[in-house]
C-alpha cells in the first residue's frame, strides 16, 4: 500500500498536484445545545411546535409516523467528502442508525431511524470531521449543490466549486437565512448539462465574458406539487455581483414570500404571482441597494478561496463530450469493459478519469463506505469523493493506469455494478421507508427497476443511455420525477374496488440548462406494473425509432405530437400501454394490489410533512 502511495505521489508530482482546502462546517456547541433541547422537550418544558422548528433547523427530520425517531440530514456542500468523513459516517450509522447511509438527490447524506435522544451524539461525531446538519431542513438555505463534474468537466469555462463553497459558508448560520418563508435551494452547474440549475431557487452556471469570470443566473425554478423552470436573470452576471445577487434574491423572498399558505410559499410561487419581468426588475433594484448598503464586514464574510497549491494539470485535447468511453459493448462483454463503458468518464485533465459508484437508490453500507474511503485515499489524486444528485458517488482524478485496479477493488466490496451513467441507475426518494408524506415505497421500486434493467442489459444499450428514470413516493418531487425522461410519482387509487399503490407516469423532462423542461403526465400505472410498462415503452421505441434516434429524443417527439410511425402522439402511446397497466380482480392476485416490501393490504397512510417548519 505504501508503495502504491509513493507511486501516486510521484505521478501527482509530475502531472501537477493540489491539496483540497479543508472546510469546517461544524460547531460543537450546537451538539450540546441540541441534547439539552431534547431533554427540555421530553420534560414537557418545550412546546411541540417550538421544538419541531428547532429540530428541523438543526437537520433532524421526523421519521414516518414516529416523531421519536429522526432522519439526520448531513449537509455536504458541493457534495465533496473526505475519506475521514465517509469513515465517520460509517461508524455513526452503525452505532446510532441502521448500518447504512443514504445519498439524497441534493448531495446530502441521510442517516435514518436515529433515536431522537441520540441525534446529538451523531452531531458530535460529525463535528469531529468538520460536517454539520445545521440548516439541512427547515425554512433555511439548504445544502448548496455544485455539479460533481465541476473542475473536471471538459465543457466548463471554470470551476464553480470555490464559489459554491464561499456562498454556502456565507449563508450558513447567517441571520438572513434563519427564518425564510420556506426552504431555499441554490445549485451551481459546470456546463449547460450538469448541475440542475433550472430547478433551484437560484441556479448558476459559470460563464466568461471578455475574459472576465461570471455566471448565468437562473431564478425561481423548483420542483414540487407545482413545478417551475428557472428564469435567466440577465445575460451575464459578473463574479463581483454574485454575492449581491444572491443576497438580493433571498432578501426579496424573505420580505415578500407567502408566510401563510405552506403549500404556496416557495419562491417560485412568488415569482409566478408577481410575474417574471416584474420580479426580475425588483431583484436588479434590490441588488443595487445591497451593493450600496452592505457593510465591508459583511462582504468580507464572503471569501472565494482558490487553492494556491493547485498546479493545473495538462489539458486533454482528446475529449469534449461526457461521457465518452466508446467501445462496442454488449451484455456478453466482460465486466470490466461494461463498467468502463457505463461508469467511467474522461476528465478535461489528460489521463485522468472520473469513476461512478452505482448505488441502489443511494444506499450504501457502513463497511462499503469504509472500503470506499480506503480506495479514495489510494487512487484519487484529489483524495475526496463527490456524491451526485443521481444518488451515486463520483470518484475523480483516477489515473488512467489505475482503472483496472480500481475496478478490482470495487468488485471485492460489491460496488462494481455497471450502469451508473445510464437509464438503469434509477433515482428513488426514501418513500415509505422513512418519510411522513410518502404514499408508496418509491425507494424499493427504484432498486427493483435498477436490478431488472441491469439484468436486461439496458445499461449497454447506447440508445437508452441518455434517458433517465426517477421515482418519487408522493407528488412532492424529492425523487425529481419531473426532470426524468420517464418519471413516476406515487399515489393511491381504487382499482377493481380495491385500493392499490399507483404511480403517475410522466414523459420528457430534463434538468439541463439549455433545454430544461418538466415532464408531462401521461397516465397512471399500478406500482407492480411499473417495470412492465418501462419494458413495453422500450419495446415500442425500438420498433418506431428512426435510425440514430435515442429513447429520450423519441419520447420528446411523441409528447410534441410529432411521431411518424404507428405512434404519433401521447394518446397513441397511452392506448398501447393501457393493456400492460391492467390488474386482474383483487381475488385473483392480491399481491398485485400490495406495494413493494409489504405483504399486507395497501393503505395510504401519511402524516404532517417535515419539509417546512
Amino acid at each position, binding site marked *: 500500500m505504501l508503495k502504491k502511495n509513493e507511486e501516486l505521489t510521484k505521478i501527482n508530482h509530475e502531472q501537477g498536484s493540489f491539496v483540497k482546502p479543508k472546510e469546517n462546517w461544524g460547531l460543537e456547541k450546537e451538539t450540546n445545545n441540541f441534547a439539552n433541547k431534547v431533554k427540555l422537550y421530553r*420534560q414537557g418544558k418545550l412546546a411541540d411546535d417550538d421544538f419541531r422548528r428547532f429540530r428541523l433547523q438543526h437537520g433532524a427530520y421526523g421519521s414516518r409516523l414516529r416523531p421519536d425517531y429522526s432522519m439526520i440530514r448531513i449537509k455536504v456542500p458541493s457534495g465533496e467528502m473526505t475519506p475521514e468523513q465517509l469513515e465517520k459516517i460509517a461508524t455513526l450509522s452503525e452505532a446510532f442508525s441502521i448500518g447504512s447511509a443514504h445519498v439524497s438527490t441534493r448531495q446530502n447524506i441521510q442517516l435514518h431511524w436515529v*433515536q431522537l435522544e441520540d441525534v446529538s451524539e451523531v452531531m458530535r461525531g460529525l463535528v469531529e470531521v468538520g460536517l454539520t446538519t445545521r440548516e439541512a431542513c427547515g425554512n433555511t438555505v439548504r445544502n448548496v449543490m455544485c455539479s460533481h463534474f465541476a473542475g473536471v468537466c471538459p465543457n466548463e469555462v471554470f470551476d464553480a466549486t470555490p464559489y459554491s463553497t464561499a456562498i454556502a459558508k456565507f449563508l450558513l448560520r447567517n441571520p438572513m437565512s434563519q427564518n425564510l418563508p420556506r426552504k431555499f435551494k441554490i445549485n451551481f452547474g459546470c456546463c449547460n448539462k450538469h448541475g440542475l440549475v433550472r430547478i433551484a431557487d437560484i441556479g448558476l452556471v459559470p460563464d466568461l465574458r471578455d475574459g472576465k469570470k461570471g455566471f448565468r443566473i437562473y431564478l425561481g425554478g423548483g420542483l414540487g406539487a407545482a413545478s417551475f423552470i428557472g428564469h435567466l436573470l440577465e445575460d451575464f452576471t459578473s463574479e463581483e455581483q454574485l454575492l449581491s445577487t444572491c443576497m438580493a434574491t433571498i432578501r426579496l423572498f424573505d420580505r415578500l414570500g407567502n408566510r401563510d399558505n405552506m403549500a404556496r410559499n416557495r419562491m417560485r410561487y412568488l415569482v409566478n404571482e408577481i410575474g417574471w419581468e416584474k420580479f426580475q426588475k425588483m431583484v436588479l433594484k434590490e441588488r443595487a441597494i445591497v451593493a450600496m448598503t452592505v457593510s465591508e464586514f459583511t462582504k468580507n464574510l464572503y471569501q472565494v478561496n482558490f487553492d494556491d497549491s493547485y498546479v493545473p494539470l495538462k489539458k486533454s485535447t482528446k475529449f469534449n463530450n461526457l461521457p465518452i468511453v466508446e467501445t462496442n459493448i454488449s451484455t456478453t462483454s466482460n465486466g470490466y469493459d461494461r463498467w468502463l463503458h457505463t461508469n467511467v468518464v474522461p476528465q478535461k485533465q489528460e489521463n485522468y478519469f472520473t469513476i461512478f459508484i452505482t448505488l441502489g437508490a443511494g444506499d450504501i453500507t457502513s463497511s462499503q463506505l469504509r472500503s470506499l474511503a480506503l480506495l479514495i485515499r489510494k487512487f484519487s489524486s484529489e483524495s475526496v469523493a463527490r456524491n451526485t444528485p443521481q444518488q451515486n458517488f463520483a470518484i475523480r482524478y483516477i489515473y488512467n493506469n489505475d482503472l483496472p485496479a480500481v475496478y478490482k477493488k470495487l468488485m471485492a466490496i460489491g460496488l462494481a455494478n455497471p450502469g451508473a451513467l445510464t437509464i438503469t441507475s434509477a433515482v428513488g426518494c426514501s418513500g*415509505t421507508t422513512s418519510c411522513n408524506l410518502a404514499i408508496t*415505497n418509491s425507494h424499493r421500486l427504484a432498486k427493483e427497476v435498477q436490478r431488472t434493467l441491469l439484468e436486461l442489459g439496458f445499461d449497454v444499450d447506447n440508445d437508452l443511455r441518455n434517458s433517465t428514470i426517477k421515482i418519487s413516493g408522493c407528488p412532492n418531487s424529492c425523487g425529481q420525477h419531473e426532470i426524468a425522461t420517464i418519471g413516476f410519482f406515487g399515489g393511491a387509487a381504487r382499482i377493481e374496488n380495491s385500493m392499490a399503490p399507483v404511480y403517475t407516469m410522466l414523459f420528457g423532462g430534463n434538468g439541463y440548462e439549455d433545454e430544461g423542461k418538466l415532464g408531462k403526465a401521461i397516465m397512471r400505472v399500478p406500482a407492480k406494473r411499473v417495470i412492465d410498462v418501462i419494458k413495453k415503452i422500450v419495446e415500442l421505441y425500438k420498433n418506431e425509432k428512426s435510425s440514430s434516434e435515442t429513447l429520450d429524443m423519441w419520447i420528446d417527439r411523441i409528447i410534441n405530437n410529432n411521431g411518424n410511425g404507428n405512434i404519433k402522439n401521447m394518446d397513441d402511446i397511452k392506448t398501447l400501454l393501457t393493456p400492460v397497466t391492467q390488474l386482474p380482480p383483487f381475488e385473483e392476485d392480491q399481491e398485485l394490489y400490495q406495494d*413493494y416490501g409489504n405483504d399486507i393490504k395497501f393503505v395510504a397512510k401519511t402524516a404532517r410533512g417535515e419539509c417546512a417548519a
Partner: protein
Amino acid sequence: MCSLINLKNNKSKTKLKYNIQSKPKNVNVKSSNLKQQNQKQTNNTKTHFKGKGTIYKLPIVCDVETLRTLIRKKAARVVDVRRIEDYKKGHIPTAVSLPLANLLSNDSPEQIVKLLETLGIYDEMPVVVYDDTFGALAARVAWTFQYVGHENTSLLEMTYTNWKNLGLEIENRINKFPETTHSLKLNHSIYADATYVESIQNNPDKVLVDSRERLNFLSEHIPSAKNIPYTMLGNNNHILRSVDELKRFVENRGITQDSEIITYCGSVGTLSGLAFYALKLAGIKNIKLYSKSFKDWKALGKPKIEFKDANYWDLSAE
C-alpha cells in the same frame, strides 16, 4: 491500528498495588465507594489474604496491563469463551477454554458451579473473560458467573483479535488446573424472567432495555421497552466505550442513576449481557438481565409492539 502506548494514554489508570498488606475491610469499601462516586473506570484493586496469596478485586472491565500483570503473578483465571477450535489455534496465556455453547447447553446454577470448579476457580478468585465477538459472549459468561455468586469477574477491555493485533503474547497449549470447590450463592438481584418483566410494565422507575439493532427493534419488541442497540456500546478498540460516553447516552435517554434496568435481546442474552455491563459501567446500580430474552417472551405468547407502517428494511443496502 493503535499501539499499546496509545491505548494506555487513553485510559485513566491507577497503578496496581502489589503485595500490600491487608487493610481493614471498611477502608477498602470506602475507597471503592469513593471511586464509584468519581465515576472513573479505574483498576480498583482490593487486596487481602486468604491463604491463597494476594487476591485482587477486579473492576467491571479489566484493562490489558492489569490482565498481563495478573497473568504474570498467576493471580487470576482467564476464561476464553470462543469455540474450542479457535482456542486451540491460540489464546491468551494461561486461559482456559469455556465455549459459550457449552455453558448454555446446561445452565442450571449447580452445573455452572461445577464448571467453575472444573476450571479451577475458587470463590474469591479474580476471573477475566474474553471473546472475539465484541464482548457479547464474554459478557454473557461473566454475568452467569456473577449470577451463581462469583462476584469477582471482569471483562477484558478488548477482543482476542485486538489483543493479537497489538502483538501481545499468545500461546496454544491447552491449560488445565486442579479442580477446586466453589460455593453457590445465587444473586437474584441481577436476574429477571418473563414474569418479572411483565410485572414492571407501567412502572416509571423500572426501565426495560432492548439491546438488539434498530431495525429488529422497530419490527417488534416487548411493550414499554427502550432501544439501546449493542452497536452503540463499543468502538473499534474497546468492547465498551468510555464511562463518560456511556453515561451521556443513558442521561440523554432520561434514565436516572437510581432507575432499575432490565436488559434483553433476541435469544440467549449475549447482546443484552454486554448492555448489562455497559449500564453498570455508566453507574447504574440496579440492573437485571432477562437472559432468556425475546425468544422466550414470544414463545410464551406475551404481547409485543410491532411497527408495520414503514418499509424501513428496504433502506438497508445489504
